[in-house]
């Protein structure tokens, strides 16, 4: 009894291990359940235009940081003649173009591919940004110092923290019927964003200017939308929220890419004037798996999976990893149904050949080869040969037959027929030999029972093994091998009746 408990624990363990690994892989690496699933990839171009003045040019474009909702797959830049480097300074990635001397209008392109990825998260904020040293009241910002102070005072009264304070200020700034203070503040040339930053700064609330890009398929000549990230510290943790100066509502991040999170300028240019940055974007649907593989290329997350092998070996494994399913079919057909097959796992090998040849061609080719083989083999039995040389003769005969069928079908214009070469010749020879002996000893009936049984199992195994979903699952989730193993083990301890035995013993069961 203990052995039995151990056995079922083992089986359950294998099963759970397999399921766990599979689910874990799905959740952690986002590998889709279905093969056809696609994922959105945003292909975004940033175009930098400026007028070079004949001096050394250094152009630094801030590029997107990793953030919630998107994962960078690749980036590149087109800029003939320029030296290019991708830098990472103060937690902010940049693309930097440099050239010693150039004149006239310049256009630089930067391209980034982003995978829509719900698994990625924002970078954690490690320190509060410093307060800006903006001169309050300078450059037309907040023309009236007192007006600004009044707005702050009003907002402070009706707020609890930095976020609600910001909202209160925004309410005042965006009121449909602005009061006197607000009108005074807005009278200057400064944008609402600048005003908000100045006001928050004055209230000792750290902020950061963010340049966000609204992603919409096929858009061109887009510009960054200014947003304000407001920070506050609570319970030792730093939190931040995004605000749009021209709206009271919270910012909807679903289609927003926070391109510029540097808090500085989007483009820093020396040696040029009249610079302009514009964006264009397209959305592409890529097979999810390819997208994920691209994404993880850099991350080395797949190090211990088959995906880390060279592509050639991967495709080899694609076939090998399907064999357990074929074997499972054989086990089911023999243990649960009770079908007789010639050679235990020969049907699996035949099914693998069918995958190469396609089903109908394979079936016709197989039956033709075995039939002709049996016919010739029946002559060999008259020759009274020793076993080994007889089988060897059959092998050579099968090869000649395959060659003959190949040439014949090619001449007849049936190129499908050439696929007959995919059949495993040794297996075919043994099949013919076994069938022939069976024919002599047990008669043709048994040959058809076993041959038919083998073909039925082979066709079933073919359908399972060539199923796209099954191929996808078995290849990408190694854990399923354990699940199949658990099933095979359970079937191995099945002591109940086989389906065909219910038929066989029926007269006995019905007897009174």
């Amino acid at each position, binding site marked *: 009894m203990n052995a039995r408990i151990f056995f079922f624990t083992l089986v359950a363990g294998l099963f759970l291990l397999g399921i766990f690994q599979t689910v874990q892989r799905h959740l952690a690496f986002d590998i889709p359940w279905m093969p056809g699933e696609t994922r959105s990839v945003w292909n975004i171009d940033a175009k930098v235009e400026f007028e070079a003045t004949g001096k050394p040019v250094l152009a630094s474009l801030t590029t997107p940081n990793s953030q919630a909702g998107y994962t960078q797959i690749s980036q590149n830049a087109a800029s003939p003649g320029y030296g290019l480097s991708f830098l990472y300074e103060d937690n902010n990635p940049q693309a930097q173009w440099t050239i010693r001397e150039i004149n006239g209008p310049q256009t630089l392109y930067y391209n980034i591919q982003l995978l829509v990825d719900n698994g990625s998260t924002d970078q954690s904020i490690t320190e509060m940004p410093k307060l800006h040293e903006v001169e309050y009241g300078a450059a037309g910002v907040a023309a009236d110092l007192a007006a600004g102070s009044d707005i702050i005072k009003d907002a402070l009264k009706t707020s609890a923290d930095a976020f609600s304070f910001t909202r209160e200020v925004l309410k005042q700034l965006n009121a449909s019927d602005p009061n006197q203070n607000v009108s005074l503040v807005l009278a200057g040339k400064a944008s609402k964003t600048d005003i908000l930053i100045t006001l928050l700064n004055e209230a000792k609330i750290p902020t950061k200017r963010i340049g966000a890009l609204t992603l919409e398929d096929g858009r061109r000549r887009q510009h960054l939308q200014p947003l304000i990230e407001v920070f506050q510290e609570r319970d030792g943790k730093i939190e931040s929220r995004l605000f749009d100066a021209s709206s009271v509502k919270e910012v909807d991040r679903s289609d927003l890419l926070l391109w510029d999170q540097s808090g500085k300028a989007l483009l820093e240019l020396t040696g040029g004037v009249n610079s302009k940055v514009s964006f264009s974007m397209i959305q592409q649907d890529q097979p999810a798996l390819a997208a994920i593989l691209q994404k993880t290329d850099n991350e080395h997350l797949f190090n211990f999976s088959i995906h880390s092998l060279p592509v050639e070996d991967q495709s080899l494994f694609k076939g090998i990893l399907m064999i357990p399913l074929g074997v499972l079919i054989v086990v089911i057909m023999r243990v649960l149904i009770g079908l007789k097959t010639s050679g235990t796992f020969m049907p699996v090998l035949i099914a693998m050949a069918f995958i190469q040849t396609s089903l109908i061609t394979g079936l016709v080719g197989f039956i033709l080869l075995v039939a002709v083989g049996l016919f010739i083999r029946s002559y060999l039995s008259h020759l*009274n040969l*020793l*076993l*080994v040389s007889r089988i060897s003769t059959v092998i050579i005969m099968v090869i000649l037959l395959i060659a003959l069928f190949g040439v014949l079908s090619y001449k007849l214009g049936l190129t499908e027929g050439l696929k007959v070469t995919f059949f495993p010749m040794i297996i075919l020879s043994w099949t013919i030999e076994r069938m022939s002996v069976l024919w002599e000893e047990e008669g043709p009936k048994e040959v058809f029972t076993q041959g038919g049984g083998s073909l039925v199992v082979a066709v079933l195994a073919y359908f399972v093994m060539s199923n796209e979903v099954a191929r996808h699952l078995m290849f990408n989730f190694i854990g399923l091998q354990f699940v199949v193993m658990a099933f095979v083990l359970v079937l191995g301890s099945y002591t109940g009746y086989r389906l065909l035995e219910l038929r066989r*013993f029926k007269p006995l069961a019905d007897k009174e």
Partner: protein
Amino acid sequence: MFFSSPFKLKKKGIMGMNQRNSGYIGRYNPRRLYPLVDNKLKTKIIAREANVTTPALLGVISMQAEVEDVEHFIKDTPGFVIKPAKGSGGKGILVITKIKNGRYYKPNGNEETLAEIKRHVTDILAGLFSLGGSADLAVVEGLIQFDSAFDGFSFEGVPDVRVIVFKGFPVMAMMRLSTAASDGKANLHQGAVGVGIDIATGKAVNAVQFDLPVERHPDTDKELKLLNVPKWERLIYLAASCYEMSGMGYLGTDMVLDRDLGPMLLELNARPGLAIQIANGTGILPRLKLIESLTNAEQMTVEERVAFCKKHFAETPLVEIAS
């Protein structure tokens, strides 16, 4: 209904292939003992040591160079059998029932020349009939003069009695009668008639061909329920003692009856089929379970085991059907 319900089968105590393989063969037959059973020469040797009668051994040919000796072995015999030591399913067995003026005749009357016999031996040595084609030995045995009690019950072949011996207890028996359909072979799946035999009396209880009930032998038209195996006592005793000699817990013993020498062991089978249940019209599981429940089974002598089985597994004789 095409299929019968599995619960009905279970209730009747019918054993299926899966259960036989894992519950009985796998559990009670140690793998290392298989060669004793699969090699007929080894079976013969252990049978001789255990005083279980077997057909007379005329000679063994183990090398191609010895093939010529066949002639020497079969000289002065009324008939003989040449079989591969490791053959299975009755393959490669050559039976010569009549030798006249240096000519050899098979049971169906066909003549076989000495050259053909030698070639048959060569085939056996090459492994033509052995499992997996491995090299084999040819065993030459004396012909069994089968008992006249079976006249008309068999067509062109030796009828044999298959007794399932479980842990030394003869739990179920059947007689296998060759037919024209089975080509003189005694294998049920090839069309031989299986007649269930009452463990207590040796009398027929039920008969089937191709898994379906039959009343009469299809070729000789002999009424099968008249079958009564003579010297049953001795036969079943011999079958039961095969347990000690082979060590196999779940064993099929194939016994034949010689007119002069009485019951003898033909061969052992470590994987006996399930058709015996159909031939007996009853499931074997209740009997196996009863034996398994015995606590003192290992201490019982052969006589005690046979007596136990006679007491518990006796059939009520087949009721005569008014015709």
